[in-house]
């Protein structure tokens, strides 16, 4: 999504508004933040056109219509989303935990009780960092297999400062890294699971490497990393999907699904597509929690084109992909040897 004017807004938010907002009751702080987002929709024509266009195109592709207020409310939620878990931060644990309506926590407990670690499958729908904040507050040991998240709370920053064989610092991945970094990520993740911790990994990460699989999402086809499914097959750890919807008034609905296991013979691409469809279903029902999903199709940057699968984008298995030069590209499941 374009960032015109965002840097000043970010500065104002982070340096001035956030310290004040954190002292307010969460419902008032959230309403204020979402109000800023809706104000921007009303008064910044570039932003309004972008959101309207993104929603209109998604609506056409999916053959659905949404309430006319959706675009404006989405703008409000986007501002709230960008603050990640910052508004929940602070020494008052109850203030944070009271902001969650949790269902299915027993599913996570049951999965942990298997003593094989848990792959907690998150996504970028709603408050995507918030499951991590909730686990932090509940004292559940977890590691995040992700690119380093920005603009998170100080509590999570401190938690993520751990180093060592099971340290969080080493778990962060980067699209820029080459060589055997993917191998190291998998091995580190398996160590986390072996230590019976929760491994938090998103199911909807578009990633340009030779392991990526194609899945359809909101009418477009994208390349997604299947690393969560690969780890599930290799480790035998249970997979628990989690969804966190941002609700009006500053609360969040945190839903844990029943644990499931992937067998070594399960088709990885099918597993990924099934998970993506679940997110899509939630987006269609609750577009105000869609965050930046609708803007994917408007992104015409080279990075986005590399991730899109279609007539003018990089083809799966094509040798024009440059990421990870040490590894051969896997064409539709069959190995390509040099």
């Amino acid at each position, binding site marked *: 999504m374009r960032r015109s004017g965002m840097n000043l807004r970010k500065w104002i938010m982070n340096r001035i508004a956030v310290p004040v907002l954190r002292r307010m009751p969460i419902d008032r702080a959230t309403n204020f933040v979402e109000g800023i987002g809706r104000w921007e929709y009303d008064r910044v024509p570039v932003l309004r056109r972008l959101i309207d266009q993104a929603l209109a195109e998604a609506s056409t592709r999916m053959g659905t219509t949404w309430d006319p207020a959706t675009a404006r409310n989405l703008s409000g939620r986007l501002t709230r989303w960008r603050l990640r878990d910052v508004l929940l931060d602070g020494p008052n644990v109850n203030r944070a935990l009271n902001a969650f309506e949790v269902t299915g926590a027993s599913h996570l407990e049951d999965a942990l009780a298997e003593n094989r670690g848990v792959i907690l499958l998150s996504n970028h729908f709603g408050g995507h960092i918030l499951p991590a904040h909730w686990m932090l507050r509940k004292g559940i040991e977890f590691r995040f297999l992700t690119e380093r998240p920005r603009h998170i709370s100080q509590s999570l920053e401190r938690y993520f400062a751990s180093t060592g064989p099971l340290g969080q610092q*080493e778990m962060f991945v980067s699209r820029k890294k080459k*060589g*055997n*970094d*993917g*191998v*190291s990520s*998998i*091995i*580190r993740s*398996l160590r986390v699971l072996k230590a019976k911790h929760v491994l938090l990994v998103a199911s909807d990460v578009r990633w340009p*490497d*030779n*392991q990526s699989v194609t899945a359809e999402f909101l009418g477009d086809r994208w390349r997604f990393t299947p690393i969560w499914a*690969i780890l599930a097959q*290799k480790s035998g750890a249970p997979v628990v999907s989690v969804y966190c919807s941002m609700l009006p008034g500053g609360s969040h609905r945190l839903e844990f699904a029943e644990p499931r296991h992937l067998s070594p013979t399960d088709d990885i691409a099918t597993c990924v597509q099934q998970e993506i469809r679940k997110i899509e279903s939630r987006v269609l029902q609750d577009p105000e929690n869609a965050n930046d999903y609708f803007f994917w199709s408007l992104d015409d940057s080279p990075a986005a084109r590399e991730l899109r699968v279609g007539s003018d984008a990089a083809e799966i298995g094509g040798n024009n992909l440059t990421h*990870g030069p*040490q*590894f*051969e590209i*896997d064409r539709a499941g069959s*190995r*390509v*040897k*040099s």
Partner: protein
Amino acid sequence: MTEIRREELFSVIRQAAKIPANILISDSSRFVQDLGVDSLDLVGVLLSIQDTHEFELTDDEIAKIENVGDVVRLMDQRGMKLSAA
């Protein structure tokens, strides 16, 4: 110092990465270019070697592995001497 037959190591690599019997494995074999091993296979190879010979590679060491000889050298550094046969 632990003695390990090279053939045993090569057998572990061949099994973990499902390398066909007609492809020769030697110290100079590059995992990707010569043995057709991709990142997932390499994970399997390294885990098998670690589990079979009870040692763990660090992330820095993993990052530098390109060929079978790199693994042999790392095992040698840990006091595991590989014999020719």
